[in-house]
């Protein structure tokens, strides 16, 4: 039995790395006595595969993992048992059974959205957004695998929205992840700063979603 799980990582755990999060999941699965499947071989491990890496420093509203179980259990039961043993900042939102041949999350997730809470300042976010999205290219030095090469993020920035509130604004940016263009969060932030946004005015950031983008449509990994 294979399950796809959507979960939340609260702000208290924003400093965990990907390996820390995997360890947290594995140990939670053990504490909850979930009948997970183990891989064969010299060093058996839980067949757990995580979605795209949540960058250190961000929390996430909708993160994903797939888990393979050795025996069938009820989905409701699984969710309850896991939520019982998680530390409070982690909570499963949703869980579905998926087919064994369903491609891995890492292969299908190709877009993500980030929400920025921005303090009011002399910079009008609507204007900034218009200028930002009007640019033909947004070139920075790559921080990823191909270090120190120029990289144009512009084709990977799909959509920017701004919502204005009394004390602050919320800006949401949809961008590409994985292949062919991986817009890293730190690179995205760098271009924002380069185009005039003051980092100090960003009160909080979290990843609001991971998507499978087909054309102009964004599907969550739970509903494709």
């Amino acid at each position: 039995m294979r399950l796809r799980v959507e979960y939340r990582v609260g702000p208290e755990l924003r400093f965990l790395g990907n390996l820390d999060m995997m360890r947290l999941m594995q140990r939670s699965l053990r504490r909850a006595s979930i009948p997970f499947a183990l891989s064969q071989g010299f060093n058996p491990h839980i067949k757990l595969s995580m979605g795209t890496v949540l960058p250190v420093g961000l929390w996430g509203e909708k993160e994903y993992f797939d888990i393979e179980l050795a025996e069938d259990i009820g989905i409701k039961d699984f969710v309850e048992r896991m939520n019982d043993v998680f530390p409070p900042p982690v909570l499963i939102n949703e869980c579905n059974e998926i087919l064994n041949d369903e491609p891995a999350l890492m292969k299908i997730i190709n877009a993500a959205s980030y929400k920025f809470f921005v303090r009011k300042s002399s910079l009008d976010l609507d204007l900034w957004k218009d200028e930002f999205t009007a640019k033909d290219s947004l070139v920075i030095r790559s921080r990823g695998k191909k270090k120190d090469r120029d990289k144009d993020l512009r084709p990977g920035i799909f959509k920017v929205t701004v919502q204005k509130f009394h004390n602050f604004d919320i800006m949401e940016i949809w961008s590409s992840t994985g292949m062919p263009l991986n817009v890293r969060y730190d690179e995205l932030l760098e271009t924002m700063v380069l185009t005039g946004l003051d980092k100090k005015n960003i009160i909080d950031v979290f990843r609001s979603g991971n998507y499978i983008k087909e054309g102009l449509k964004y599907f969550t990994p739970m509903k494709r």
Partner: protein
Amino acid sequence: MKDKLFKDVLPRVSKPARYTGGEVNMIKKDWNQSSIKMVFAFPDIYEIGMSHLGGKILYGLINEQSNHLMERTFAPWPDMEQIMRAEKIPLYSLESFSPVKNFDVIGFSLQYEMSITNILNMLDLAGIPVWAKNRDDSWPLIIAGGPVVFNPEPFADFFDAFLIGDAEDMLLEFLDFLANNKHLSRQERLIQLAEIEGVYVPALYSVEYNEDETFKSLKPRFKGVKLEVRKRLVKDLDKVYFPEKPVLPYIDIIHDRAVLEVMRGCQRGCRFCHAGIVYRPVRERSIDTLKKQADMQVKNSGYEEISLASLSTLDYSGVKTLVTELVEEYEKKGVGVSLPSLRVDAFSIEVANEVQKVRKTTLTLAPEAGTQRLRNIINKNVSEEQLFNAVEAAFKSGWLSIKLYFMFGLPGETTADLDGIIELLKKVKSIGDQNAPRTVEVRASLACFVPKAHTPFQWQAQNSIEELELKRKHLFEQKKKRIVLKFHDSRTSYLEGVLARGDRRLSPAIYLAWQKGCKFDGWSEYFCFERWMEALEQCNINPDFYTRRLRAYNERFPWDFINTGVTKEYLQRENERAVKEIITPDCRQNGCTGCGVCTAFDLDLNIKEENHRALKS
């Protein structure tokens, strides 16, 4: 404060999750409902402090079994310290983010002599005066425990009290007393606390020295204050608290696994070994208790590994049964069993084979010295034959990498003994190459011998830095290809030696070294030898007095008043046998060696699983 930390401070430091707390199984008790508030302070980073078993025991004990509370704090890494100082953030606890100066008691764990500068730094970061004499009734009590406090004197002026021995036997008594005597002044409280067995209050004593600078006496300044402090010990490990819900770190720490303490103490009697004396006698836990603890810990933590910890796990009477049964129980759940170090014999390899049915990583053995003669001197009861048998068995059963621990700078050591290390390594390598499917990797770790208080070698002189460096060079010249030698830093070991057998006159130099910026002295990237030497010189202290001097048997030592149960006569006898190159066999196999501890505590060796019984001393 928590909000500022998460939003503003932690994003700017390396490994921010060290400073956030909130782990699974963390216990946060209601501050106002708790009687005495204590913070367990570990003078090194989170990853090291959280790996320490003693802290886990005390944390669970106080929080689960008393109406007091215990929170945790660790030494911040210098990047964090810098921001804390710049932005006036005091040292805080990970549970309630309370400044540590708001606690009633701050308990430091002294695992290593050189961590004293980190303790001063943490007190300072907390805004607490580092000298005990400058703290009035309004300040928390600053206490310490751990192996180092068996010679507390170099640190005496910084602490209000030391807890000597197994703290789970005495900490509740200590805190209960404070809870019931809140009306007393600091001085009155300390005088009465000193009546508790195992508690040493340094301010209640004055020290005199002889004209030749050696220690003369430690005299109580008040009537009724005890003349000697006897350590506390847990008599039966089956009847004592052990944590079944360990705090689960989010980040990768040094030892991140379920721990079973199979026994406490070791009776092998290696003459250099501090822990082997101060934690006598051997007390074992029964297999039934251990299996129950394993079950609870795995259930509550989800750990993927269970480690069998002790000073010499392969000497645990039930080791084979326990390992076999744990492997059988947990293998199918994907939980492994591990042994921290192995005894040098074929039996150990057999047990290790049970454990490592699958993956064979590096095998670690500790012959400690290169020749039989020197092993006899240090009483490391390992013959060359045993070692080679163990190594052959290991390589035949699939290991490809082996790590051997040695010491150099030992008493009576000659060039032949150093050459012996290399010969031994070459032989191990050739046994490996003959018996393993491919070329094997042989690594040796060489520690500088540091004579420690309360050991048979407490009278011995320590090698100078120059001697150690010459020896290191010699070993390097003899070294062969594909044998890796790794040396401990001789200068760190030298200072460790000064503190290990030091006295109260060292405290101004410790203070000055810290003032000059010394901290994280156990970390090579921060250790600054020159600053320490400057500090010692400015305080007119000749460090060679503590390290290089061969002490006479009639000399009184500053730590003699700490009673470990082992007699000075026994230690002297062992030192004399070392000179004569005579071994003293293990009392578990060959009968009592008369160290005195069983008589002192009215105990017998507590062997749980087999009918090994030594004669009472």
